């Protein structure tokens, strides 16, 4: 991999994370537990979609083969997607959606805080702008973790189950591979492995306040950066990419 290839891959990871989670949140539209929450979820979805567009546009430019944000979003198959496995997991109930959001928000917050100091100005700019959005996302999902954890018996059970079901997808967030190492070495990327301690401290604090139990690290899955995804991603793409693929000559 050349430096350019690595930066391209790195930007895809960032953009794909935002896009796939935004796509998942879009599924909630019109179905949230209350109207106010419908507006909150779409606000977060819109932020994520905005991030995705900035990263994918930049990725396309770095690659230099004429692919724009839509070409990258609509014409890549499963093996070329770089989003974390956590984010392609189905929404489940509101507890599961919020748990997924919370784990990722608190990760992305730290990741983007680091990236806002990137030596790559454009990347730093996107990260700094997004960091403000994510600060709000994290507040929103943390509030819900605490409300549902320390709410009723039913909500506590549902939230605990959600955490247990998602726990094994979390270690992947902190994995470093050759691309990460190279990006860190160049001062472009974030050392995500190094963020784990801070993330643990924040997450443990919220879980404790929410009277939720931090699960044992008994299982974990990985592979998204090599294009090894769960079966869910294929369906997300089938739905998302349908129109441009069915009518490849059309402009929309």
């Amino acid at each position, binding site marked *: 991999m050349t430096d350019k290839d690595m930066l391209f891959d790195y930007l895809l990871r960032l953009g794909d994370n935002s896009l796939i989670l935004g796509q998942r949140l879009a599924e909630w539209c019109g179905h949230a537990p*209350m109207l*106010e929450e419908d*507006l*909150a979820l779409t*606000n977060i979805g819109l932020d994520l979609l905005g991030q995705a567009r900035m990263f994918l546009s930049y990725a396309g430019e770095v690659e230099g083969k004429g692919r724009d944000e839509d070409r990258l979003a609509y014409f890549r198959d499963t093996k070329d997607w770089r989003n974390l496995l956590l984010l392609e997991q189905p929404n489940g109930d509101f507890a599961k959606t919020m748990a997924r959001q919370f784990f990722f928000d608190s990760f992305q917050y730290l990741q983007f805080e680091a990236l806002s100091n990137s030596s790559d100005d454009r990347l730093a700019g996107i990260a700094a702008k997004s960091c403000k959005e994510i600060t*709000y996302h994290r*507040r*929103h999902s943390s*509030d819900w973790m605490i*409300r549902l954890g320390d709410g009723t018996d039913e909500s506590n059970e549902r939230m605990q189950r959600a955490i247990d079901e998602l726990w094994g997808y979390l270690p992947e967030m902190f994995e470093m591979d050759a691309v990460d190492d190279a990006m860190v070495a160049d001062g472009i990327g974030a050392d995500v492995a190094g963020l784990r301690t801070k993330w643990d401290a924040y997450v443990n604090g919220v879980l404790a306040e929410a009277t939720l139990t931090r699960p044992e690290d008994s299982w974990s899955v990985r592979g998204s950066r090599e294009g090894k995804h769960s079966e869910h991603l294929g369906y997300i793409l089938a739905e998302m990419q349908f129109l441009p693929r069915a009518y490849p000559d059309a402009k929309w």
Partner: protein
Amino acid sequence: MSNETKNEHPLYEVFIRSKNGLDHKHVGSLHASDAEMALTNARDVYTRRSEGVSIWVVKSTDIVASSPEDRGSFYEPSDDKLYRHPTFFELPDEVGHM
């Protein structure tokens, strides 16, 4: 009230300062389980187009309001005190703006 029996989230009134230098203005209401949720909901519902720099939320039941029947006793007594308004005083044009 039906709200309590049915476990509906209480109603909050939302006031927004659109920019520094202006007063907070009532923009509408929403439901929330507590003050923090009311504040974040207000942000999501009422500032989607950068309408604000500051938000107040207050439980609707905490607002004390005058009633329309008080109109006579509250507001009409000031109607005959025209000397409170600058236009009450006629000054010659030569004096200029005052």
